């Protein structure tokens, strides 16, 4: 193997790995612990609310006020599918960046941003709908833990959207050539992470009674 080839494949670091990639994986590792604390807290308080509204059951208060069940499974299922597809779109955008295929990069990166915007829009609609149904942040344990967990996830999706949106603008200006594809790979890793967190949240919060 020539020295140049080895240098191109292995950055000159003590680990032989790109430090930026090592940093994003370390950050993702810390984020695993962050979300595990939120998911653990949700599970600990699951089913412990003494007043409604509840996620899957109707409830009538002692004053006779009736509350519908909170969750709208079809809407969240659609949002989940869109977020999963956004992960698919971003790997195609990355493949485009690595091959120097600008059309592929811009097209799939745009699709990723649109899918991410849809997911955040779905969450904003869901939160406002739940508020209308009588579930505030301090209404009961379910409300507090649900809004905290899904709200922090939504905030992470929003950060990912800002990151990917910035890269989309740069790619439109032709500033992501193949040798800078790692810039998109780092953002894509973060985006996949928020996707896998939702892969856990969706069944744990919405589907398990």
């Amino acid at each position, binding site marked *: 193997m020539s020295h140049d080839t080895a240098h191109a494949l292995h950055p000159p670091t003590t680990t032989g790995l790109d430090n930026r990639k090592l940093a994003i994986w370390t950050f993702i590792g810390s984020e695993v612990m962050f979300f595990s604390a939120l998911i653990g807290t949700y599970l600990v308080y699951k089913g412990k609310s003494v007043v409604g509204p509840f996620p899957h059951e109707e409830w009538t208060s002692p004053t006779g006020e009736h509350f519908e069940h909170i969750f709208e*499974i079809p809407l969240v299922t659609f949002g989940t599918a869109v977020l999963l597809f956004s992960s698919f779109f971003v790997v195609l955008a990355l493949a485009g960046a690595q091959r120097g295929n600008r059309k592929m990069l811009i097209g799939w990166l745009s699709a990723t941003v649109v899918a991410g915007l849809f997911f955040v829009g779905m969450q904003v609609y869901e939160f406002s709908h739940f508020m209308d149904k009588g579930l505030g942040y301090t209404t009961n344990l379910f409300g507090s833990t649900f809004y905290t967990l899904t709200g922090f996830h939504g905030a992470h999706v929003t950060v990912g959207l800002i990151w990917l949106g910035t890269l989309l603008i740069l790619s439109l200006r032709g500033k992501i050539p193949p040798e800078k594809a790692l810039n998109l790979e780092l953002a894509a890793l973060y985006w996949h992470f928020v996707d896998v967190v939702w892969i856990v949240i969706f069944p744990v919060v919405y589907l398990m009674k």
Partner: protein
Amino acid sequence: MTDSALAHEHAHPGVKAYVLVAVILFTLTALEVLAFEIVDRGSPAGLAAVLAPVVVAVLLVLSAAKFALVAMFYMHLKQDSTLFSGLFVFPIFVAAILIAALLAMFSYMLSLF
């Protein structure tokens, strides 16, 4: 290590593999919702009776499969350095222990009242 071996080690999956993973992810999500709906509606009754006691386990297995697929193929852990896998998988083990410990501790504390 030869050039080609090294290049292969770092090569990411192709578009075909990405499409296949997307189809599997979509199918597993559909199965999750189907399992939930069967138990929730109690219909068909026979299948609902079989699924009801194991639905949580089924949902966890399907979710874990989706998680692993995204991590291995979309996050490229299957091809990238094992150090990255370690940085991701070790906190997941710690997180699983943390959540199990929290559930056990709260269950014990609530049993005292």
